[in-house]
């Protein structure tokens, strides 16, 4: 992706780096120097539709929303469509965003969740048949139980066997790295409810993956 601007604004917090910080930060590359700026400053510039700021937010959140959508729907095209819709909605609504305790990322994910609910309703009405692979083909083998990570396909199929709310909590907490408060704001539930869902989700996921060996 080309960028004709003199310098690039990047967010310092990556998907892999999920250590808690007081606020997400960004960095500006100016020549061979890197300057860290807060995400709120990038959002502020994006609210003025500065292209560099918008691109920075897009590059950060498009992959996250795509990943979130793919794990919910299991369909590449549908996930791309949803990610694009959400990015468009993000910039169209960005002027209305105000930091009142809800981090910008959580605000973007709330847009994604609402869109996902609309899509689910439409798919249910269409009677779309889930043709994805069955769980039997992806059950954890004894060796894989010792592995440090799940395979993407395993996780994706296993998540289909959770309730919608359990799936939301797993993806938002363990994949996207949100805290309980933000997840509660995204899903419209209390923090206590999120803790309960987390417990039930892990329990259900373990039962699905390891066939009752809980």
């Amino acid at each position, binding site marked *: 992706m080309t960028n004709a601007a003199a310098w690039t604004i990047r967010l310092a917090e990556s998907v892999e780096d999920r250590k808690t910080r007081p606020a997400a930060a960004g960095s500006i590359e100016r020549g061979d120097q890197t300057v860290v700026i807060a995400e709120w400053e990038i959002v502020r510039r994006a609210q003025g539709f500065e292209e560099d700021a918008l691109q920075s937010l*897009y590059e950060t959140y498009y992959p996250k929303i*795509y990943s979130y959508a793919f794990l919910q729907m299991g369909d590449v095209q549908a996930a*791309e*469509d949803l990610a*694009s819709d959400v990015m468009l909605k993000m910039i*169209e609504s960005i002027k209305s965003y105000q930091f009142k305790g809800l981090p910008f990322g959580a605000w973007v994910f709330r847009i994604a969740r609402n869109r996902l609910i609309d899509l689910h309703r439409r798919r249910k009405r*269409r009677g*779309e048949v889930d043709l994805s692979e069955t769980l039997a083909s992806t059950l954890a083998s004894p060796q894989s139980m010792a592995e440090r990570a799940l395979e993407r396909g395993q996780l994706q199929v296993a998540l289909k066997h959770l309730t919608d709310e359990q799936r939301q909590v797993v993806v938002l907490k363990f994949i996207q790295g949100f805290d309980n408060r933000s997840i509660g704001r995204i899903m419209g539930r209390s923090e206590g409810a999120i803790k309960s869902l987390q417990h039930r989700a892990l*329990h259900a996921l*373990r039962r699905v993956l390891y066939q009752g060996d809980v």
Partner: protein
Amino acid sequence: MRFRSFRSILDECVTAIQHGETLDACLARYPRHAARLKPLLGLAQKVRNTPPISPRPWAQATAWNTVRLRAADLRAGKRRAASIHMSIGWLKPLAVVFAFLLAVGATSGVTAFAAQDALPNETLYPVKLFTEDVRVWVTYDDSSKADILLDQSDERMDEIETLVSHGDRIPENVLAALQDRNEDALAILEDHPEETVLWARALKQSESQESVLIDLWDVVQPEARVEYTEVVADIHNARLRGTDAAVARIEAADLAGGIRTITGTVEAADGGVWTVGGYPINVDERTIGALGIAPGSTASFTVGNGSRGRYALFASLINTAAAPTDAFVVGKIEEVTKDRVRIGGQWIDLDSDILPKVPLRKGQTVQITVNKTNAGTIASQVSAFASSSLTFTYEGNIEGDPADSSEFWTIGGLTFTPSTRLDLTGGAAVDGARALVEATWSGGQLTAQSITVLNSTVPDGQAYLVGTFEGTRPGFWVVSGHEVAPRNNMEEPEPGSIVALDVTEDDGALTIKQFDVIRGPDDEPLSRFTGTAISIEGTIWNMEIGEVRVASGATEVSGRQVVGARAIVWYGPGDGVSQATYVHVLDQDPVVQPQATSADQQ
């Protein structure tokens, strides 16, 4: 040591590990829970370590281009113009549309983009439909055409849902477009019986569309009702193709008089004509779900009224060992989430298939139909509730035979036009039967939103009215638009009070015998629930809405407490259990089998 729940300990450990603490350190901190914590925390780590799922670079780049263009529009101060339909398959037919528009001198290709989100009551809607038509024209494969047409049919339902949620009525154009697309899709599939997946989708979609549309009779524009009856008849007939029964058709004329739901006890069946609560209803191979219904059973029928009588589109059995199907709660939404609402302190889950007829928001007054299930209380329908000054509840004896074709009901001296819901569970709708009406004024006429036949016997001339006291006229009190004569020296309530009146009725003239104030104008708001006392244990009534406390001294009760009888309850939040302020028991005898209480079971 302060007790902590396992879920809190688990959450604390999840967060601690996320911040760098080791699993062993967490387990050492909670040795009693280590055996349970270890597998769950281990799994959480594995999920966190799952390799990220990355998007396709070209798709990300393509989408960025559209976002960038839109940002440029916003910078320049342009209004929303871009479509949110990002699927690339749309670009080709849009290019064709652009060429066509340019060829005939259209002002801008942006018109087609702007039309993508147009609703049926907006100017650009015809452009949207034209764009869809082009997409079908340029598709050469029949299966793909059918798939696209089913998508477009589904889009019509989205538009209808959006209109209804905005409080708008449904116009003719969207119904015509829905019918066209359904017809075209089915015509293609008729020639391709081997397309089993598409057939399954078409039938499933028809089922879903019909279940939504049959509830919308009263929100269809009057001039669109012919189109509406054709669409519903076509969709119903499409579903019949999927059955083993001989193919038979519902005609649009069979629905011309409206669609309503009648619930009651089946009394007889003669040559396909069933009598339900005194109503003759035609049930034949065009009725879906009628198997197993026999005389003596209680069933719910969705019925179309036409010149040839009432034809049942659907029929389903009711389990009268449990509560009857329909219970209602009316009140202000105190809290709302995506999947539940709180009214009067009670949380009610929303069925994922319901179509709220109003936007759900805090402070909105709504009427919700609820059912009690094993999973709790579920809302199956949500609609706006009109201002209380225009709505009242009236109970009286049925006069004459309402089952004739005129469909006007006279109850307790007042005349009503029934709307959509008749509950004849308590008995037949015959001359002299006791009935409860929930009514609204509309154009100077009383429209009954629901009529319920009660299991009670009350002498003629005695009636009951609940409404809002609006003020006085010489010699009269005005209660929800209706004049009632007070007795001498009756102290009038404050205007705005909700009042319950025992009245005598003489040829439609009402005179108050006694009255109660349910709620004063400055009192805390109350919610209202109409349902069944499934069980009563001491002061606690178990109803479809949940538990309600009915305590002497705190609750005014009109009628006798009967387990299995229906009642209207005005209530507010209490200490752990909703507190009833006023109860009017509707049935003198139970309409459902009383459930055994815990005392009975000891």
